[in-house]
């Protein structure tokens, strides 16, 4: 299906993220060969519980990152509330408190663009359900860097605006159901 074996996966989601991620992340096997970065729009002034929820449900360890958190394959890294998460190099993330982008911090675009810079054609970028346009530009950057772009089928999404915007800005993207995304990941990142 894909020529290059994938080295990293980045996922962006907003409204409906919890259910959508629950259909993917728990199915990834313990020997999953890529780091998985996840950016979800979470309220700025809350303590996010995503990492806790998913480390309980997943075979892979999940953490909410601190600045310069070391990154390794077979782990899930959530962007924290109120910071942008940038992929600094293959082994680290960096945080920034720059202004919000499209009213969002963390911004999916910011994380995807930085991931595309670092991972290039080894990156799979995935846009899931959401009610805004964040991620559309970031997914374009993934494609421009030679990576694989995947979008959740808007018809199956809790909120379709975000996947629709991603498809519009990124016609090359593959459109898949959540089950298809999961089996793609198991194949491409084995």
């Amino acid at each position, binding site marked *: 299906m894909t020529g290059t074996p994938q080295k990293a996966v980045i996922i962006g989601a907003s409204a409906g993220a919890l259910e959508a991620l629950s259909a993917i992340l728990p199915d990834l096997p313990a020997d999953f060969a890529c780091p998985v970065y996840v950016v979800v729009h979470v309220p700025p002034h809350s303590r996010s519980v995503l990492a806790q929820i998913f480390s309980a449900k997943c075979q892979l360890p999940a953490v909410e*990152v*601190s*600045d*310069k*958190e*070391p990154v390794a394959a077979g782990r899930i890294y959530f962007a*924290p509330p*109120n*910071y942008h998460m*940038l*992929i*600094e*190099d*293959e082994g*680290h993330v*960096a*945080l*920034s*408190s*720059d*202004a919000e982008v499209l009213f969002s911090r963390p911004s999916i675009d*910011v994380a995807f*663009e*930085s991931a595309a*810079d*670092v991972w290039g054609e080894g990156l799979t970028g995935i846009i899931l359900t959401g009610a805004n346009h964040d991620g559309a530009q970031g997914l374009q950057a993934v494609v421009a860097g030679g990576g694989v772009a995947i979008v959740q089928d808007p018809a199956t999404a809790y909120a379709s605006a975000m996947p629709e915007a991603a498809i519009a800005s990124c016609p090359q993207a593959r459109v898949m159901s959540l089950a298809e995304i999961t089996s793609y990941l198991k194949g491409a990142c084995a």
Partner: protein
Amino acid sequence: MTAKVEKVEDIEIRLLLDAIYRRYHYDFRSYAMSSVRRRLRQARTDFDCATISALQEKVLHDPDMMPRMLGYLTVQVSEMFRDPSYFLAIRKKVVPHLATYPSLKVWIAGCSTGEELYSLVILFREEGLEERTLFYATDINRDALAQAEAGVYDIDRMRQFTENHRLSGGSTSLSDYYQTGYNRCVLDKTLRRNVVFSDHSLVTDQVFGEMHLVSCRNVMIYFDRDLQDRAVGLFRDALPRSGFLGLGAKETLRFSHHAAAFRDFVPDDRIYQRIGS
């Protein structure tokens, strides 16, 4: 990993940062590359340059460009009592220790436009420590320092500041400390009585005295790991045994070269205490 060919844009960025250092002595060469890339791409677009190299030409030949570039290379986003639980922890857990000293020095490193500084001054006033405290507020961005010194903020930010202040355990009303007019709030100038503002870089300057508390929040996130080690080294040297270091909500000493010189004091709020010699 296989050896990678450096991308042209990354080469241009390194050359630009080198040019800025040689021409203007601002050293961004060891800042986190992912952020620098993003900010310089914005600058390239805003200044209508086709490439970073074209931007470099402007920066080198037009000295008026440097202050504007500083606006891209440094990030001026701040809030009074940002992360109220941090200030609550300072109030409840750090202040009782500080109160045992007859005189105090506090360093707000990377104070930006002053919000963090004034939060601490107000907190110290509420806790009865202000009069014996000298505050050093430092930054490399002179425009930001000038704004910090002016202490004037848009009125529509005050709602958030007031809520933050309340959540930080404030015993007074934030409105006691400012006057409003023309949609702006002017902070009471007595809050600056014990403040020294100064242009100081965590990259190129040295320690300037012994501190009881260093608050350096959301500044080192823009540094690479080596540069973070340098900056934390300054704080280690500035803090005597049992001095305190407070970081931003998602910063940690866990990955630092100097981790062993500190212990967790309030882990959730990233407050550390100096141990050892």
